[in-house]
Every structure is written in structure tokens, then in C-alpha cells.
């Protein structure tokens, strides 16, 4: 099967995760990388053995004519670059959030359809071990009917580049500021495990700036969501420890809990919970111990939070090679963007 010629536009931190796959996959020929910084572009070309480097995206598209382009620049630049890539005849894999609003995302997806090309927004966490494990429990009926999906991201958003007061301008040029950069993760996790493919019924809560850091925009979210029989609570907290990315899926039969930063899998519940509860806790303790050892080795061998990225990209490339629909559908992307819109709408003026 012919290898697809790929190019990357934007060589920041997330590009290292994409290029790790692109530089080693048998499905891909890494044709070019592009960054506004010449030093960055040439360094990344050498590091990941790309054939060429560019500082101008238009020149890359014209000279290289890639089959697939990864758009990994800051979100406010995505729309114009995605259009440019589609017009150049390339499929596009775009980092999340694809745009600042669902309307813009829908317009881009429609534009891709008109050009007969695939446009996919990244949702790498769904390809992580823990998400796959919980997905299996949902699909095999162990959880029963899902009733609640909670996601908590506790991460100090002011500590990274989003809140770096040495830099000018907003940390993220998005309606919900720095929080917006993470909202697609929370939204697609909820929608996926709640099996919701359209709009949710209700979103209430608040999105605030609690740190006082003007550059970060919004850094605190507490949202309650209702979608049919499923409820959910999506939270971002910048002021609690430890850093965690917790996912809890509760169903009519069992509940499953895990964490994307330090993965474990705790499954509780059963028909005879009263008598079995202590034994189940002992079992959970043993599983937690095993998870601790596994996490230690995972950290040593650099199997980190982004380990789902190469799986996601491989699944997308496999679909493109086979001429099939990618594993992330247009409907999924739109539903995510619409939920993000509604959460961003909870913001209070800063």
C-alpha cells in the first residue's frame, strides 16, 4: 500500500507527539515540516528525519503537495491554514480546538466535504489505555446503562505558557481562554461515554478566572450537564493538588474510575455490594498497587499521557489509506464543538 506523504505545520510542543509517529510509521512518508521559526523548522526536520523544512505554509503546500497535513499551530490560526491545505488537495488532521466556535468548525467541515477531503480534529485521550479499558466495560455491559460521566482536570493553568506574564497578549486566543484549550478533551470524553452524538439537553455552572492571572483568561470550570438519562460534571481547577485528569463513568450496574496522568482502573459495584464491599476494596487496593508499579515503569519507558496519539494517528492513516471513514466522525467533531460552545457560554466577564 502506498505511503501517504505527510507534512506538519506548526512545530511547538504538540508537534513532538505527532512527529514521533510520523517519523516512524510505515504508513507515512514525512515529507516536510513548517514553522515560522527557521531554527525550529530546521531542527525538527533533522530530529524527525523529514525530507524538507519550510517557514512558509503556502510554499510548503505548493512545493511538496502533501497527501495529509497536520495543522498544529495556535488555534486562532487554524481556520485559514485548514482552508489553505484543503484547497491544496490535502486531508487535514487538526489539533483541538479546531476553532473557537462550533459555527466555524462546522463551516470548515463543510468546506472539507466540498473539496472531497477528510478533516479530523484530534481526540487522542480516547485512544489511551484507560479510555479503551472503560470503553470495553461500557460496551460489554459491565457498567450497565451509563448514568453519570464526570471529568476533573486539576492542573495549574497559570504555571505554563498560558499564564506566563512575561509574554504579552492572551495566553490562548479563544473565547474561554486557557480553559478552552482543554475543553474539547472534557467534552468528547463526556459525549463518548454518555453515547451522545448530538446536542446535550442542559448545561449549567460557571467558568471563571480565580487565579487573578489576566493572561490565562478562564482557569476554573464547574459545569453540570444533562443529556437524556445521563448526567455529567465537567471540572477544571487550577488551585487544587495533585495534578490529575480523572474520569469516572457510573452506570446502573457498576462504576469505573481512572486517571489519564497516573492511570489505574477501579471498578466498584455488583449485585451483592453489602457483603462483597470489603473484599472489593481489598481487590481494588491490590489493583492500585499493580497500577503503581506499571505507572512507574511506564514513566521510565516514557509511555506517557500522549501514548494514545500514535494509536489515533495510525487509525486515521489506516482509514485514509483504505479510503474509509476515519475513526473520528464529522458528527462527533460537531457535537464536541457545540458542547464546548455551551460551556464557554458559562463564562463570567473578567
Amino acid at each position, binding site marked *: 500500500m502506498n505511503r501517504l506523504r505527510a507534512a506538519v505545520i506548526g512545530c*511547538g*510542543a504538540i508537534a*513532538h507527539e505527532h512527529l514521533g509517529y510520523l517519523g516512524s510509521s510505515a504508513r507515512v512518508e514525512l515529507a516536510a515540516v513548517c514553522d515560522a*521559526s*527557521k*531554527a*525550529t523548522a530546521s*531542527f525538527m526536520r533533522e*530530529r524527525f528525519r523529514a525530507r524538507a523544512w519550510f517557514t512558509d505554509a503556502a510554499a510548503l503546500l505548493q512545493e511538496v503537495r502533501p497527501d495529509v497535513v497536520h495543522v498544529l499551530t495556535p488555534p486562532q490560526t487554524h481556520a485559514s491554514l485548514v482552508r489553505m491545505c484543503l484547497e491544496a488537495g490535502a486531508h487535514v488532521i487538526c489539533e483541538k480546538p479546531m476553532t473557537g466556535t462550533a459555527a466555524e468548525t462546522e463551516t470548515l467541515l463543510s468546506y472539507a466535504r466540498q473539496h472531497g477531503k477528510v478533516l479530523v480534529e484530534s481526540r487522542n485521550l480516547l485512544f489511551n489505555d484507560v479510555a479503551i479499558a472503560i470503553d470495553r466495560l461500557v460496551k460489554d455491559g459491565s457498567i450497565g446503562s451509563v448514568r453519570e460521566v464526570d471529568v476533573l482536570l486539576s492542573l495549574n493553568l497559570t504555571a505554563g505558557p498560558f499564564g506566563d*506574564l*512575561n*509574554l*504579552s497578549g492572551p495566553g490562548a486566543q479563544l473565547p474561554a481562554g486557557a480553559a478552552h484549550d482543554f475543553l474539547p478533551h472534557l467534552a468528547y470524553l463526556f459525549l463518548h461515554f454518555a453515547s451522545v452524538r448530538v446536542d446535550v439537553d442542559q448545561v449549567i455552572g460557571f467558568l471563571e478566572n480565580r487565579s487573578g492571572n489576566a493572561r490565562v483568561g478562564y482557569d476554573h470550570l464547574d459545569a453540570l450537564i444533562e443529556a437524556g438519562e445521563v448526567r455529567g460534571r465537567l471540572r477544571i481547577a487550577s488551585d487544587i493538588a495533585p495534578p490529575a485528569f480523572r474520569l469516572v463513568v457510573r452506570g446502573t450496574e457498576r462504576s469505573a474510575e481512572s486517571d489519564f496522568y497516573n492511570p489505574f482502573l477501579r471498578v466498584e459495584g455488583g449485585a451483592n455490594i453489602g457483603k462483597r464491599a470489603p473484599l472489593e476494596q481489598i481487590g481494588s487496593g491490590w489493583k492500585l498497587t499493580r497500577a503503581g508499579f506499571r505507572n512507574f*515503569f511506564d*514513566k*521510565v*519507558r*516514557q509511555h506517557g499521557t500522549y501514548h494514545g496519539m500514535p494509536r489515533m494517528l495510525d487509525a486515521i492513516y489506516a482509514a485514509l489509506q483504505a479510503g474509509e471513514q476515519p475513526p473520528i466522525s464529522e458528527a462527533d467533531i460537531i457535537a464536541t464543538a457545540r458542547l464546548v460552545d455551551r460551556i464557554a457560554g458559562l463564562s463570567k466577564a473578567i
Partner: protein
Amino acid sequence: MRLLVTGASGFLGREVVRAAAAAGHDVHALVRPTANVEPLGWPAGVTVVRGDLRQIGEWATQLADIEAVAHLAAAPSGDLPTQFAGTVVATENLLAHLPMQSLRRFVHVSSFSVYDYGAVGFGGTLTEDTPIEPAPEKRDAYTITKIEQERLVVGACQTAGTEFVVIRPGAIVGAGKDWGFGRVIKLGRFDLVFSPGAKFPLTYVANCADAIVKALDASVPPGSLFNIVDDELPTYGGFHRLGRRLGGAAPALYLPWLGVSLLAGSVWVVNRLLFKGRAKLPEFLDRRRQRVRWQPMSYSNRAAKDVLGWRPTVPLREAVERIVGAPPETVSLDADRPRVAASATLAKRGK
């Protein structure tokens, strides 16, 4: 000369500003917007320029009259993208906005980290002729980015015909940066000290700053390169004992270089067998990085002394007194007497 000092509020930069102002330069100190420069006590003549080199801003319009540069800005910590942005992209932005054609000299502050310590070997001498690390990706982000940064500066200066000097300091010590007096990690109440008989290639921060200021106007061949270490280099064991005697360090457990090498060799085998060599190891367990810190070898500062005319004016005893804030003349300097048994040894001196 109208001198721009980048990274001016950093550990070394603040001393360079002071030394350059004392040498009569018209110093323009580039500091980050949030830096608090008041406690630094710079002379009134120092012009503070605020800006972050990672991002083009107002600072870029204030460089037209600059005649010389001492470039110290770098991001020494964080992951590779963070260090790359703060070291390489920052340097790229600076070079793009300097009047390169009219600059009289560009002094770039690099690091010993760029060297290939494997090429020096056990007991060898690290000099300016030592080759650059050929596989920086197998070391760490700091090595990668400092090599890229140096390459960028040299390339830009050569293209523009700008005179440049590269300064590569060893471990810079000073108040607030004592390198744990050679401690690798803490083990309970003890400090684990590797390779106690190996030289610690230190330079006291004020001495290093003097070398950088000397490099601004010394008569040197184009593209000169100078290693900076002080004249009196203690051993790791001796440095730790000094710190201990002054209350700055805990009792020591020593592991000689042979033990350090065996430890790394064992870990290397485990890494190969269990992790296919992909394990990310801490510095003290990683063979390549161990060599950089603890391999017994010598260091030469002859070129800096002969060509720049530099002399480290703060002797080791005084430097250590300043580091720990001890009153002068209270320290007995016996830095070079490591007591090492065949295996780990508890240093009982000073108890």
C-alpha cells in the same frame, strides 16, 4: 561601548551587568517583564530594557544603537520544547533584530554541556579543542538546545561578518547556587556524593562575569572560544567537606567513580533488556550524563588566561565563604583530601 546584556537578571547576568558597568560600558540590561531588578543594586547608569526574547516586542526596537552584546539568555530547565523556545527561538529573535553589521562584538555564553565527554576519556583534559557532543539527543534538552543556540550564533555572526567570541563556562557557583556542594541526592540524613576524587570544574560567578567582560574588548582572533573554570578546582569530596564544615551540607556517603560506572553499566544493561534502551533515566544513572558530571578528568583555562588576560580574582576559599555567607577567614581550605574506601564510605569529618 553601548552593551546589551541579555538574561541580565539571571544568576550570571546580574554579575555581568555589574562588572561591565564597572569597566565603563554603557550597559543596557535586557530583563524579563516581571523581573524585579531593584534588589540587584545595579549602578544608576544601567539602562533596563524589558522584554521576553521568545516574543517579538518593544525590546526589538531598542537595539539599533547597540555596539556589543553579551548573550546569556537561555532556559536551563523544562522539557525540550520549553528549553528550545527559551534558548534557541529566543536567540533567533535576538539575532534577527540586532544591527549585526555594525556590532563590534558578540560575546556568546555557551556551556561545558556542549562537549563530548566521551572523547576526553578517563583522566584526559577538556580543552577548547574537545569536540562537540555528536549525539546530544542521547544526553538532555539542555545539551541539545545549547548546541543549537551556539550553532545559530556562530552562523549568524559568520554570515554578517560580526566579530564573535564564545565563552563556555563550567559549573557556575555563587550565593544561591551551591550545586548541593556536590550532592547527587539525599539519602535520609546523608548526602550521596559521587566520584569524590574527581575535580569539580567550577567557576565563581564573579570570576566568570569578569571573563565575559574581558571578552568584550580583548584583542582576540576572530571566532575565539574560551573555557572558563577557576584556577583552584576542588574535588567533589573536598567541595562537599567544605560545605559541611560551614553548615551547608549533611554528612556524606561517597561512591567512587568505579562504583558510579558500575552502577550506570548495570542500569544500562537493565534498560537494554527490559526497555529496549528507551528508559529515561535520571542524570546519576545515565552513563553519558554521568561522564559529564563525575568522570575524573582535568580542565584547562589556559586559553582564557593567555589570550583574554583573564585571572579569576576571587579565590576558592573566598568564593565558598560568600556562597555560605560565612564570615571571611573562618574556613580552613582542605578541599582535596577525599577519603574514599573501596565502596561507599561514610564521611565522618565535621560530626
